C-alpha cells in the first residue's frame, strides 16, 4: 500500500458540487457564445460590406470629376489647339485650380512631346513623354487610361496618370491621390474600420496612414494577400499571423483598383469579449458558491470518518481504547458498530499472531536450519545464528550485502530470474540448490526463498530464505554417482569382454569341431556308465569304413576285433573304476575286417565335483609308422652286416697285404744289398723303383688301415683333454716343426668327450697338413676354439699356399690329391681320415681358404660341458 494515492471523499464531494454548478452554466454559456459570435460576425460583415460599397460609390463619383474635366478639355482643345494656344493654357489653369484632384495637366502631341502643361514653365514644353507607359497606353486606345501608381517627377508624391487620346492630341493628368486618402481617413476615423485602395499592382494608393502611400507600400504590408481582393467578405489571418481581420473588398470598375475595408477581429468582436468576461465571472461565482456549499456538506460527512481514521491509527499503534461516539446517521452508526467488532477481532488475532511470532522467533534463533530475510533488491536484512555459523561470517558482514555475493556464479542467472518472479509477484517462491563460496570452504545448500510480505499492489517488501546445509549429502551423492559410473563402466567393459569371448568361443568351437572332425587322429567319447560311444569324429568313421550311425550309441567294443572285445571291455572298465590312464597300442577293426594299428590315449573328463563324467579317446593311427619301422629295422640290419663285412675286408686286406709286401720289400732290399754290384745301372734303377713302389704301397696300406681302424678300433668315448691330444700330435710332428721353423700356437682347449688317440690323429693330420703345404715363409699355425651358435668350433689356421675353393668337395675324399707327389709327398688319405674321425664324434669339418694367403680348417665335436675355469685364452706353445 506504500505510495498508493487514494481519492479523497471531501475532494470528490467538492468536485461534484462544483461540477453540478458549472456544467449547466458552461453549457449554456457555450451556446450563448456560439450564437453571439455568429451574430457579431454577420453584423461585422454586413457593416464593412456596406462601407466598402458606399466608399466605392464615393470613389467612383470622385473619379467621374476628372473624366468630365477631360471631356471639356477635349472640347476646348478642338476649338483652340491650332488657333489660340494661350486659351488652352488658361483653360488648363482654371481646371487645375478648380479641381484639386488634378496635380498637373498635359496636352501631348501624338509623337509624345509636351505641347501644353499646367502647372509648369516653358522648360517643360517639348519634353519627350513618348516612353511613358500612360502615353503608350493612350496612344493605342481611345478609352480612358489609368496608369499604375508612380512617383511624381515634380512633387515626388505618389500619383497616377489619367490619359485619353483626343482627336488631335493626348491629354494626360497627374492626379493627386491625397483626396482618396482623405476618403479612407474619414471613414476609418468614425467607424473603427480601415479603408484602403490599391492599384492593379497591389500598391496602396489610398490609406488613412499617408506613409503607406508615400512609401509605395504593397497591400502585403497590411497583412493581406492581393489574391483575396475582389472576393467575398471573409475573415483572414494576417500574413504575419498576428491577428485575424474581417475583410470586404470591391472592384472599382473604372480603374481596376480595389477598395477594401478591414476591421480587426478583436475590434469587431469587442462586445463579444465583454460578454465572455461576464459569463466567465458568473461561472466563477457559481463555482465559488458550489465550493462553499461543498465545505458545509463535507463537515457533516467527513468528521465521523476523521474520528474513524484517528481511532484506526490508535489501533495501529496498539491502543484499543476507542472513543467512537454514536452517530445520528444510520450509515455511520452501522460503520461504527462494525468498526468496534473489527477492533475486537483484531485484538484476538494480534494475540494469536504474537504467539505465532514467538514460535517463529524460537525457530529462527534456535532452529537447526539457516534462515534469513532478504529485501527485494537482493540484500540481506537479517540472518539467524545457524546461518551465521554455516556461512562462517558474522551478521555485520552479511547484512546489507548482496544475496548473490557469496553464491557461486553457476546457476545465478536462473536464480535471479526466479527471484525476480517472486519479487514481481508472479511466483510465491522457489527452491534451488546453490553453492556458497566461503573463504576456505564451499557450502552446498538447499535454498528455499518465499515472499515474506506483500503490499496491495503485490509488491514484495521482504523475502524469507531457508538455507539447509547439504554439503555432506552432496558429497555422498557425488561418491555414489562416481561408484555407479565406475560400476557401469566395468559392467560395460565386462560385457564387451564376454561378448568378445563368446565370439571367440563360438569361433573356437567351430574351429574345434572342424579340427575334431578332420583331425588326423581318431576321436570318440565314451559314456562311463555303459561304455557306449556318445561322440566320434569323421576320421574314425572314414578310417574304419563305417558310418557314424553305426558307431554312436554302440558299445566301444565294436571298434575292436571280436576276439579283443572282451579285453577292451575290461580295459575301459578299469579306467572307469580306477581313474588310471595309460597309453596303449591297440588294433581296431575296419568294416572289411582289416586291422588298424593305433595308439590309444585316454583322457577322462571330470565334472565340477571332480567326478569322472566321460572318457575321451584318441587313437593315433600308427599302421604306416609300424610298416616303416619294420622296413628300417630290416635296412639297418642289412647295413650293419655290410659294414662289418667291409670293415673286415679292409682290415683283412690291408693286414694280409702287408705280409707279401714286406716280403717284396725285404727281398728287393736283400737283392740290392747282395747283388747290387752285379747289376747294371738300369737294373739298379728298376730295383729302386720296385723298392720305392713297395714302400709307397706300405704307406698306402698303413693309411688305409688307419682309415679303417677309425671305425673299428676306436675306443669308447671318454672325457679327454684336447690339450693333451694337441701335445701328443706336436710331439709326433716335432721333426717337421723344427725342419720348417714353424710357429705353432694354441688356445686353451675345453675338455670334451671323445677318443683321445683319434683326436690326436685329427690334430696331427691337420697341423701336419699345414706344415706340409707352407709357402715361402716359415709356417705360422694357430689352433683355436670359439663358440658359434651354441657350438664349440675348433680351428687350425695357417699361412700356407691355400686351397682353391673349387676343390672343396674333393679334399675330404679318400686318395684325392690336389698336387703331384713330386710337389708334395703323401697318400691323399689324411683329410679323409680327419673327416671320418670328426663324423665319428658327431661333428662336422670344413675349411675357409684364400689361395696364397692361408687356410683355416674348422671342426666341431661333442665336447663335455665345461667344468669350470677353462676359458678361451691365448697361449703359445
Amino acid at each position, binding site marked *: *500500500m506504500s505510495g498508493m494515492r487514494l481519492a479523497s471523499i*471531501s475532494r470528490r464531494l467538492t468536485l461534484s458540487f462544483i461540477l453540478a454548478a458549472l456544467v449547466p452554466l458552461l453549457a449554456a454559456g457555450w451556446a450563448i457564445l456560439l450564437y453571439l459570435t455568429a451574430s457579431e460576425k454577420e453584423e461585422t460583415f454586413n457593416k464593412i460590406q456596406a462601407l466598402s460599397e458606399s466608399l466605392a460609390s464615393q470613389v467612383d463619383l470622385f473619379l467621374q470629376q476628372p473624366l468630365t474635366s477631360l471631356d471639356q478639355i477635349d472640347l476646348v482643345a478642338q476649338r483652340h489647339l491650332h488657333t489660340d494656344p494661350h486659351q488652352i493654357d488658361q483653360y488648363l489653369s482654371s481646371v487645375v485650380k478648380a479641381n484639386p484632384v488634378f496635380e498637373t495637366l498635359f496636352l501631348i502631341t501624338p509623337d509624345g512631346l509636351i505641347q501644353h502643361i499646367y502647372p509648369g514653365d516653358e522648360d517643360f514644353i517639348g519634353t*519627350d513623354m513618348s516612353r511613358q507607359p500612360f502615353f503608350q497606353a493612350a496612344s493605342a486606345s481611345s478609352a480612358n487610361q489609368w496608369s499604375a501608381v508612380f512617383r511624381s517627377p515634380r512633387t515626388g508624391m505618389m500619383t497616377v496618370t489619367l490619359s485619353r487620346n483626343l482627336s488631335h492630341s493626348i491629354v494626360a493628368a497627374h492626379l493627386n491621390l491625397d483626396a482618396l486618402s482623405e476618403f479612407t481617413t474619414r471613414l476609418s476615423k468614425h467607424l473603427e474600420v480601415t479603408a484602403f485602395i490599391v492599384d492593379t499592382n497591389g500598391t496602396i494608393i489610398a490609406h488613412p496612414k499617408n506613409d503607406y502611400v508615400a512609401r*509605395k507600400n504593397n497591400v502585403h504590408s497590411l497583412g493581406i494577400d492581393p489574391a483575396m481582393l475582389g472576393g467575398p467578405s471573409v475573415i483572414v489571418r494576417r500574413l504575419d499571423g498576428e491577428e485575424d481581420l474581417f475583410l470586404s473588398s470591391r472592384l472599382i470598375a473604372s480603374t481596376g483598383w480595389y477598395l477594401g475595408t478591414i476591421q480587426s477581429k478583436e475590434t469587431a468582436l469587442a462586445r463579444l469579449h465583454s460578454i465572455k468576461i461576464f459569463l466567465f465571472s458568473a461561472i466563477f461565482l457559481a463555482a465559488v458558491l458550489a465550493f462553499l456549499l461543498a465545505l458545509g456538506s463535507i463537515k457533516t460527512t467527513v468528521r465521523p470518518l476523521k474520528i474513524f481514521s484517528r481511532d484506526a491509527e490508535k489501533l495501529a499503534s496498539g491502543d484499543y481504547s476507542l472513543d467512537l461516539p454514536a452517530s445520528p446517521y444510520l450509515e455511520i452508526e452501522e460503520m461504527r458498530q462494525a468498526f468496534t467488532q473489527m477492533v475486537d477481532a483484531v485484538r484476538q488475532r494480534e494475540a494469536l499472531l504474537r504467539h505465532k511470532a514467538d514460535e517463529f522467533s524460537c525457530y529462527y534463533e534456535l532452529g537447526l536450519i539457516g534462515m534469513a530475510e532478504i529485501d527485494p533488491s537482493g540484500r540481506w536484512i537479517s540472518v539467524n545464528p545457524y546461518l551465521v555459523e554455516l556461512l562462517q561470517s558474522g551478521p555485520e558482514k552479511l547484512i546489507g550485502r548482496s544475496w548473490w555475493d557469496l553464491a557461486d556464479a553457476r546457476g545465478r542467472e536462473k536464480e535471479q530470474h526466479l527471484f525476480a518472479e517472486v519479487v514481481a509477484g508472479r511466483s510465491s517462491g522457489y527452491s534451488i540448490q546453490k553453492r556458497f563460496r566461503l573463504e576456505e570452504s564451499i557450502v552446498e545448500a538447499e535454498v528455499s526463498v518465499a515472499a515474506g510480505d506483500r503490499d496491495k499492489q503485490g509488491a514484495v517488501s521482504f523475502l524469507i530464505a531457508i538455507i539447509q546445509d547439504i554439503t555432506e549429502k552432496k558429497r555422498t551423492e557425488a561418491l555414489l554417482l562416481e561408484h555407479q559410473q565406475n560400476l557401469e563402466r566395468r559392467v560395460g567393459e565386462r560385457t564387451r569382454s564376454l561378448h568378445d569371448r563368446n565370439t571367440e568361443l563360438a569361433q573356437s568351437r567351430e574351429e574345434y569341431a572342424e579340427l575334431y572332425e578332420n583331425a588326423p587322429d581318431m576321436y570318440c567319447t565314451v559314456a562311463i556308465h555303459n561304455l557306449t560311444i556318445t561322440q566320434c569324429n569323421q576320421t574314425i568313421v572314414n578310417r574304419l569304413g563305417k558310418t557314424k550311425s553305426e558307431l554312436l550309441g554302440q558299445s566301444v567294443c565294436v571298434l575292436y576285433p571280436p576276439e579283443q572285445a572282451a579285453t577292451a571291455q575290461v580295459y575301459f572298465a578299469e579306467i572307469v573304476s580306477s581313474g588310471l590312464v595309460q597309453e596303449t597300442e591297440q588294433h581296431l577293426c575296419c568294416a572289411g575286417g582289416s586291422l588298424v594299428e593305433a595308439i590309444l590315449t585316454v583322457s577322462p573328463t571330470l565334472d565340477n565335483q571332480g567326478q569322472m563324467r566321460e572318457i575321451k579317446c584318441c587313437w593315433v593311427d600308427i599302421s604306416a609308422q609300424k610298416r616303416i619301422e619294420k622296413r628300417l629295422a630290416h635296412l639297418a640290419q642289412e647295413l650293419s652286416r655290410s659294414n662289418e663285412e667291409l670293415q673286415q675286408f679292409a682290415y683283412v686286406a690291408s693286414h694280409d697285404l702287408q705280409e707279401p709286401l714286406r716280403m717284396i720289400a725285404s727281398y728287393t732290399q736283400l737283392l740290392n744289398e747282395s747283388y747290387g754290384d752285379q747289376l747294371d745301372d738300369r737294373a739298379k734303377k728298376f730295383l729302386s723303383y720296385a723298392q720305392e713302389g713297395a714302400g709307397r704301397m706300405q704307406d698306402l696300406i698303413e693309411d688305409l688301415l688307419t682309415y679303417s681302424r677309425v671305425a673299428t678300433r676306436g675306443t669308447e668315448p671318454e672325457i679327454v683333454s684336447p690339450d693333451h691330444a694337441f701335445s701328443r700330435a706336436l710331439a709326433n710332428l716335432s721333426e717337421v716343426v723344427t725342419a720348417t721353423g714353424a710357429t705353432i700356437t694354441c688356445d686353451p682347449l675345453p675338455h670334451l668327450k671323445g677318443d683321445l688317440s683319434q683326436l690326436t690323429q685329427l690334430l696331427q693330420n691337420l697341423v701336419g697338413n699345414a706344415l706340409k703345404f707352407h709357402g715361402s715363409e716359415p709356417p705360422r699355425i694357430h689352433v683355436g676354439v670359439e663358440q658359434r651358435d651354441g657350438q664349440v668350433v675348433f680351428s687350425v689356421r695357417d699361412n700356407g699356399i691355400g686351397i682353391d675353393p673349387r676343390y672343396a668337395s674333393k679334399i675330404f675324399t679318400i686318395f684325392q690329391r690336389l698336387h703331384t707327389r713330386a710337389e708334395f709327398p703323401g697318400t691323399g688319405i689324411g683329410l679323409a681320415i680327419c673327416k671320418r674321425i670328426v663324423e665319428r664324434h658327431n661333428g662336422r669339418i670344413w675349411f675357409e681358404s684364400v689361395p696364397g694367403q692361408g687356410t683355416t680348417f674348422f671342426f666341431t665335436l661333442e665336447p663335455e660341458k665345461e667344468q669350470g675355469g677353462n676359458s678361451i685364452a691365448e697361449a703359445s706353445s
Partner: protein
Amino acid sequence: MKPIRRRASPKTIPFLAMRFVLIWLSILSIGGCESQEPLRIGFVGTLSGKAALLGTAGRDGVLLAIEECNRQGGVNGRKVELLVRDDGNEAEQAKNVDQELINAGVSAILGHMSSEMTAAAYETVMASGLVLLSPTVSSVEFSGLDDNMLRVAGTSDALTRGLAGHCATQRGWKRAAIIYDLANKTYSLSYADLYERAFAATGGRIIRRISFVSGTDALSMKAIAKQALEDNPDGVLVIAASLDAAILCQQLKKINPNISLASSGWAFTEELVQNGGKAVEGIVLPSYYQPHSPEAAYVAFKKSFEQRFGYPSSFAASLGYEAATVVLAGLKEASSPRQLKETLLRMQRFPGLRGDLVFDRLGDIQRPFTLLTVRDGRFSEMQ
C-alpha cells in the same frame, strides 16, 4: 505497517480553492501566451520623396529575402521581423530613425540606400556596435575603414575609371561637363572627383562642373543644362537620381540634340527611361547590376519579386535582397549580434544572385561592373 498517503484532507481545502482560482485565471488568460521572441532586423532608406525610388525597391528586396527566410523556419527557429524606417533623405531624420531601430533591439541595420544618408547616420550606428550593411552605397568615403559598416555594392572608383575610359575611347570625349546633385553629395561629389581624375588620366578635361540640390535649387533644369553646354563640351556626365537625370537629359537634348550623355548608377531605374524619353537613348552608365543576367538565382529572384510586389525588380531591389541574405546567413552563425561583423568577415563568402559575394578584411566588396546604355527604350549591356 506503512502509513497511507492521503491525496487530500479537509485541511487542504483552502489550497484546493487557491488552485481552483489559479486554474480559472489561467483559463481567462488563454491567448496571452507569447511564442518565442522574433529576431528583429532594421531597414532604413529613403522611402518618400523624389529620391525614394531606390529606398522602396531596396526595402522590397529585403522584405522578399526575409519572407523567404521565415517560410524556411527563420533564423535558428526564430521568426525574423523587419522594422522599416524612412530617413526621408534628411540627415537628422536618418539619425533619429536609426536610433529608433537600435532602441527597438534590432540585430543589424540594412541601409541606408544613399551615401549621404549613410554618412549622416554613420556615427549613431557605429556607436551602437551594430552592423550597418548597405545594399547600394558605393562611395569611396567609406572605403578602407575598419568599422561596422559593410556593403554589398562595389565602390565608385572602379566604375568611374571604366566610365571615363569608355567616354574617352569609345565616344571621343576630350572635353566634358559634369552636373551633380548635392542632395547626395557624399556620393555625387566623390563620384565627380573620381570621374574627373580618371578622365584626366585619359587625356580629357572637365571644363565645367555644375552642382544643384534636387527639389530645392533655384535654378531650373533648363538653366542647369544651358550652363553645362555653354562651353560646348563633347559630353555631359549627369550624377543624379533617375527622375532628375531624366529631366536633365531631356533639357540637354533640347538644347543640343547631338550631345553625348553619361550618368551614374544612381540613375539606373526604369524611371530614367520612362521620363527621359528619346533623350536618354544612347546614354551610358556603369553599374554593378546586370539586368539581363542569365544566372538561375537572379532569374528566380526576378520572378519572385515581380509576383510579390507587382512591378519589376531593379538593381536596388536585388542588392537589398543580397544584403538581407548575407545578414541572415551571418545571424544564423553568430553567437550574438555583437559578433555579427566578425562572423560575416570570417564566413567571407556568400552566394549572391550573380555569383559569390566575397568580403575583404574591412567588409568592402569587389564586383564586376557593366556599362549599360538605353537602346529602343530598354536598358541593355554594352559589349
